[in-house]
């Protein structure tokens, strides 16, 4: 009787699983369809504006069109310098192209002091085509909208550096509400406990990205996979970006890497724990400890 009951229950469960499975499957098919529709829409009428927006968000941090070299090369006339097929292949998968031993790609990497262009999320053959079209159109203009930030060239001052330090450590808020750098990054000379360990140490970044203009444009819209979603809605103002550049420049000039602060950290933790234990013991000094055992072991109370 019981077994039959169980079998029935199992059959019922299987049926339910099937139904749920089918339901989930159909939902997934629906979402693929939706994606397809979105892609179709993207390739439609609004493609020129979309491509410009895409460029600003993903490419402008390393490339200019007619603004000179930043981290990556100036793209003015790139469509003339390289074949369309090569451009398509490279933009779709830069690390792959470099790894394949392509001579042009290797040379470019050397010119960028080893910085490898990442694979950009959302790049499809359609998007690449539009980007190349955009490059051609913008190259033809006298001054492209992607010629780079005007303010990025002005000389850095002491005030910039102080502002950068305040922004980095969070002593001053970023205007658009982005999180302070220190929550994820550390840098040399930041203080006894250093900054966050989630992101990389930023001490050498100024040198690595190739100077003021490159770093300022990079900061204006960070393209990396982790930083892009964080700062997408909260972009830095040009002054903030320059301040941080100034701060990172002075940090980099000191050389080396950020001080390791784990000993300080452990010591502080230890002192904190002991302090709180003493505090707890004092606060609850009248707590119930034991009645029977002291009675028996100590004879009279």
């Amino acid at each position, binding site marked *: 009787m019981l077994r039959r009951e169980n079998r029935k229950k199992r059959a019922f469960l299987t049926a339910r699983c099937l139904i749920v499975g089918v339901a989930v499957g159909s939902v997934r098919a629906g979402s693929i369809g939706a994606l397809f529709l979105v892609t179709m829409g993207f390739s439609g009428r609004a493609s020129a504006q979309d491509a410009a927006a895409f460029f600003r968000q993903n490419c402008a941090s390393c490339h200019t069109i007619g603004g000179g070299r930043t981290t990556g090369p100036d793209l003015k006339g790139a469509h003339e310098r390289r074949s369309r097929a090569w451009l398509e292949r490279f933009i779709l998968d830069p690390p792959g192209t470099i790894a394949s031993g392509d001579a042009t790609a290797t040379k470019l990497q050397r010119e960028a002091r080893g910085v490898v262009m990442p694979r950009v999320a959302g790049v499809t053959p359609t998007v690449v085509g539009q980007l190349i079209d955009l490059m051609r159109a913008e190259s033809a203009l006298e001054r492209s909208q992607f010629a780079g930030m005007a303010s990025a060239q002005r000389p850095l001052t002491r005030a910039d550096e102080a502002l950068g330090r305040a922004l980095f450590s969070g002593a001053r808020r970023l205007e658009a509400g982005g999180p302070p750098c220190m929550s994820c990054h550390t840098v040399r000379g930041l203080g006894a406990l250093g900054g966050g360990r989630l992101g990389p140490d930023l001490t050498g970044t100024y040198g690595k990205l190739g100077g003021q203009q490159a770093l300022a444009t990079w900061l204006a819209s960070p393209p990396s996979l982790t930083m892009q979603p964080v700062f997408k809605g909260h972009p830095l103002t040009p002054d903030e970006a320059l301040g941080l550049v100034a701060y990172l420049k002075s940090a980099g000039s000191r050389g080396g890497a950020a001080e390791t602060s784990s000993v300080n950290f452990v010591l502080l933790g230890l002192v904190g724990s002991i302090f709180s234990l003493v505090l707890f013991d004092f606060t609850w000094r009248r707590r119930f400890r*034991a*009645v029977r055992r002291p009675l028996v072991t100590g004879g009279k109370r």
Partner: protein
Amino acid sequence: MDVRSQISMVFHLDKCIGCHTCSIACKNIWTDRKGTEYMWWNNVETKPGTGYPTRWEDQEEYRGGWEVRGGKLRLRANGKAKIITNIFHNPSMPSMDDYYEPWTYEYSELIHAPEGPDQPTARPISMVTGEYIDIEAGPNWDDDLSGSPVYAENDPNLAALTPEQREQLFAIERLVFFYFPRICNHCLNPSCVASCPSGALYKRGEDGIVLLDQTRCRAWRACVSACPYKKTYFNWQTGKSEKCILCFPRLETGQAPACFHSCVGRIRYLGVLLYDASRIEEVATRPDEDLVEAHRSLVLDPFDPEVIAAARANGLHDSTIEAAQQSPVYKFVKVWKIALPPHLEFRTLPMLFYVPPLLPVMSSAETGKVANVSDGLFHVADESRMPIAYLARLLGAGNEGLVRYALRKQLAVRSFRRAATVGDVEKSAAERMLAEAGSSPEEADAIYRLTSLATFDDRFVIPPAHREEAIEMMKDPLQHKQEVGFGLSVAPRRGL
């Protein structure tokens, strides 16, 4: 006047023989499950002694019950502010060690032990961890250990005695002890109910039994620290607290609770008391020495027409009022005034009353033999071997006069009966004693009957529970009336 009914109890300590039958009856019915091994909803203690859990009466340590602060009643351990700040660590929580670690024995050792030079023994095993343990304590560990330096001398009630009295109490040949059976007092002002952050405890409206809702309990254990009598327990298996339920399933079917039913010495009485609920707070804030009388004044006369009218207005059934009129508890507490509540200074207003023990024979070993000190068989209450100060601390909230009154009346009744049955006491002397004790021959006869001759029905006057009325709230009893009777109340299961 807010008249309510309460099932109340009287334990006659003079009759308790300390056999623990009540404890076993309770254990077999309610606490033989896993996680409840260490619980004794009913336990019997030896006084003077430290009891179970050890020194439970010491509220400096356990911080149970209420105290009056700024003219208002406050929980000693966990008022609202304290309960929030200490919700993850209750600083007044006794550990299992203060009760005892429950154990069983490895009986298979007796049969399967390898051959050896010594007798095989059954080693004790912890019922919590399953490991071998050395037994260090039990629920009645100090049984009969009067005078022991660890247990008897640490009784918190001894603080009421002078050093001289304490010395006398523990002198060889003068040792004295009595038994003190304890269950939940089903208090009028229960601190366990007040302390529960989840609202899991409640006092049943119809009969005042304090119950703990197992589905609402969230294991905060505030009740464990708040109960000054330490009569709520935490079940470490289910993660819920449990307590004495006064065998309400038995009560609802007209049977006495198991511990009452099984009592060998017939020391237990159960009946309804009508009380005035509107005065509880005022009574509970009285100074210690007035507490017992104030508590007694809460109990209303069930024959008073005004009380009866107010009771009816409050929805009390006539059968409950009738049961209150026949209640043996009412006689002991209110009419004869010989039953007193334990530790009323905890201010929970317990509804379990104790008749103080006489311990009459006063003896000494001055001549090398044990000899009676007082002239007659019965002594004077104030020369009782158990100092009145001690009993007053235990049962009178420190008020010796009330304890003395109860003892003298009992002595007078004994003399009166001695005169009637044996005749070695002058009848006139006995009647004079009765008059001095504020009693009369009629009352003495009634006390004697209810103490010595009482039947089940005299001792347990259980009001009908009227569950049929309660059921009407959830179901219509006439739902199937005039239906033809075909069909099934539970549909058959067919097919696969």
